[in-house]
């Protein structure tokens, strides 16, 4: 009878076991790494404190309550130089969010179109889209932003070219449809003006026009009604097999109430007028903003196109063959069969593209668009000399924005992902 060869006698715990015994090794490594990381963080903090002391600086955020003293070219909320650095921060933050929001929308629309077209059977279209993707994806986004700005600045005339010459009664350049003027500083477009105002609601952030609020409420109501109409149509379809035509009802519900409200309020466009150096009255969309927005959108669209293409190709070929067999036309196959399934694959990488775009918007400084980086991380930092405070706060804000975006997109992802039962 053989005995199992040596389950070793109990020899007690030796220190070398921490390294050589696989039962303990991973724990040892983890603890060592933990200590190293803690040590490094501790060293960073300690070094910072010592250096701040040596420079005689403290760490506080009271500067956010002080008068800013500088002006911001494109503020979405009322702002002047008597307001605080905190308010300037808010102006910058809103600018960041605004350009990121519009950028994400434009990039998605463009990206989906390009991604789908890249799979087109049309040789020329597919190749052109390939060229688009490769060109935009492989050149740094900063350059695209600068190119966009250079184009806008160099090609468009200066505002004074629109000045009417008193002698001839003509201007060197005339406005598009008498209401839009492209200049090398901004594009002047008409703004919306109401003859009758319901007044405005003062909030801490910005005064909200009640007219605007009324229109939004009406649209919201229309949305609910059309939803009910569609639901009813589905019900009828389920019962009888025939779906009643609803498009004219829906169109009427959307358009009529809004049309009535705006007519009552007396809506009319306020056209830009050249006064002195610049256009006034209308809205001036600055070239810096357009360049940043276009640069970010075009660049990110190239990545999104690839994501969309990958998503579509991930849907099994049998799906489209089945759809064709049922007699669906290619466009409907794409819209009703392929894209909904592709979305599952598309959404997760799309989140990172949205995050990238948002973070890349901090390149705004290159074109002088004052976003969060330009106000808090630029002028405020410089005028107050609070580098550490401003940079940490800015990092924190970008972190929060990114987490919010990815949180929101994850919720969306959960709604569209494959429901396995």
């Amino acid at each position: 009878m053989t005995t199992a060869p040596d389950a070793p006698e109990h020899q007690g715990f030796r220190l070398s076991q921490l390294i050589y015994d696989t039962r303990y090794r991973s724990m040892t490594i983890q603890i060592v790494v933990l200590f190293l990381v803690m040590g490094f963080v501790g060293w960073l903090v300690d070094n910072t404190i010592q250096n701040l002391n040596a420079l005689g600086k403290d760490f506080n955020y009271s500067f956010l309550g002080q008068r800013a003293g500088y002006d911001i070219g494109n503020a979405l909320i009322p702002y002047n130089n008597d307001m605080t650095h905190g308010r300037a921060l808010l102006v910058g933050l809103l600018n960041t969010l605004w350009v990121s929001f519009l950028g994400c929308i434009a990039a998605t629309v463009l990206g989906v179109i390009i991604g789908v077209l890249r799979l087109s059977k049309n040789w020329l279209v597919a190749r052109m889209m390939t060229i688009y993707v490769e060109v935009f994806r492989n050149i740094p986004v900063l350059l695209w932003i600068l190119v966009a700005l250079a184009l806008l600045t160099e090609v468009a005339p200066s505002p004074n070219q629109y000045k009417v010459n008193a002698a001839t009664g003509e201007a060197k350049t005339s406005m598009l449809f008498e209401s839009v003027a492209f200049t090398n500083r901004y594009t002047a477009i008409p703004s919306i003006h109401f003859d009758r105002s319901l007044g405005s609601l003062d909030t801490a952030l910005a005064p909200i026009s009640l007219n605007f609020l009324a229109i939004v409420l009406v649209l919201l109501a229309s949305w609910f009604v059309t939803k009910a109409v569609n639901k009813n149509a589905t019900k009828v379809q389920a019962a009888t097999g025939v779906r009643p035509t609803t498009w004219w009802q829906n169109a009427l519900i959307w358009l009529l109430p809004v049309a009535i409200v705006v007519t009552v309020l007396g809506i009319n466009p306020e056209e830009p007028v050249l006064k002195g150096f610049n256009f006034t009255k209308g809205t001036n969309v600055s070239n810096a903003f357009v360049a940043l927005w276009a640069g970010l959108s075009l660049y990110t669209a190239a990545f999104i196109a690839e994501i969309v293409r990958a998503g579509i190709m991930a849907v099994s070929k049998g799906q489209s063959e089945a759809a064709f067999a049922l007699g669906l036309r290619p466009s409907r196959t794409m819209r009703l069969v392929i894209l909904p399934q592709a979305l599952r694959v598309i959404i997760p990488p799309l989140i990172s593209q949205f995050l990238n775009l948002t973070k890349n918007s901090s390149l705004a400084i290159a074109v002088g668009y004052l976003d969060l980086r330009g106000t808090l991380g630029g002028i405020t930092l410089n005028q107050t000399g609070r580098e550490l405070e401003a940079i940490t706060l800015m990092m924190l804000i970008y972190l929060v924005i990114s987490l919010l975006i990815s949180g929101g997109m994850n919720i969306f992802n959960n709604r569209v992902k494959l429901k396995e039962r």
Partner: protein
Amino acid sequence: MKKSVFIGALTAATLAAGVAGAATLDDVKARGELICGVNTGLVGFAAPDANGNWSGFDVAICQAVAGAVLGDPSKVKYVPTSGQTRFTALGSGEVDLLARNTTWTFSRDTDLKLQFTATNYYDGQGFMVRKDSGVTSAKELDGASICIQTGTTTELNLADYFKANNMSYQPITVDSNAEGEQQFLAGACDAYTTDASGLAATRAAFANPSDYVILPEIISKEPLAPAVRQGDDQWTDIVRWTVYALIAAEEYGVTSANIDELAKSTDNPEIKRLLGVEGDLGAMVGLDKDWAVNAIKANGNYGEIFAATIGEQTPIGLARGLNAQWTQGGLMYAPPFR
């Protein structure tokens, strides 16, 4: 035990990493090189030529300090800094000295923990416009788009000036003088504003300088001074008195041409002390006897530097104005060397 080792290691690491050195003079001497923060490129004040050699009014200050400290004005490393990065560069110890059209203000002196040494140029903020715009006064700029460098005092002055005159404007923010120049030339702004000296220097670099005018209004006081970190008094003294040595040299007629001869022949006790022939002023700030001689030899006295870099004979063509010697109705006034 483990913990104490850990803390010990931490402390050692911290000490080794150290704090930006307290004695800048020792650092500079040990390094054998002065690191000088200068403008990213402003003709006449600080700009590299085709071969990468820096020259200009601010650069001359760097060279004079290098001469005084190291005995060799060429031992300078130039670090171009923008309006945004300059104070961080100085505060973090990346540069020893900031000679970069920097306005001496209360909050920078106190809150930013800088030490301004001695004003080397009395400036003021002005506006430049295209001649064909027909603008002749800054008061006519209501509603204009104005290019402005970010991170500067001019940014705040501009806001104050337009507010005080009840005018509006559209700020076009730029990061450097080069970018401002480009935007202004492209017509993205109606006026470009910065220190009047900077405007003159910028205009001199244009293809057709005569197509542009600098408006007569000077809307602020901008005393430009080399700056150092607060907390190193010896280094502050060295830079401050080097600048004064250049100014005093002009007052006493000491030039780079006659300095050696003058050191032997002069009877003026002030010049003797300045040039280290009599007494030992250098030792009082930890420098050699002939520190001032080396500083002056670098590019000449204040007047010579001014004439060679930004004076009326140069394309920039600035008159001495406020920057003349006090004996000639200016503000340049060096305290006594004794």
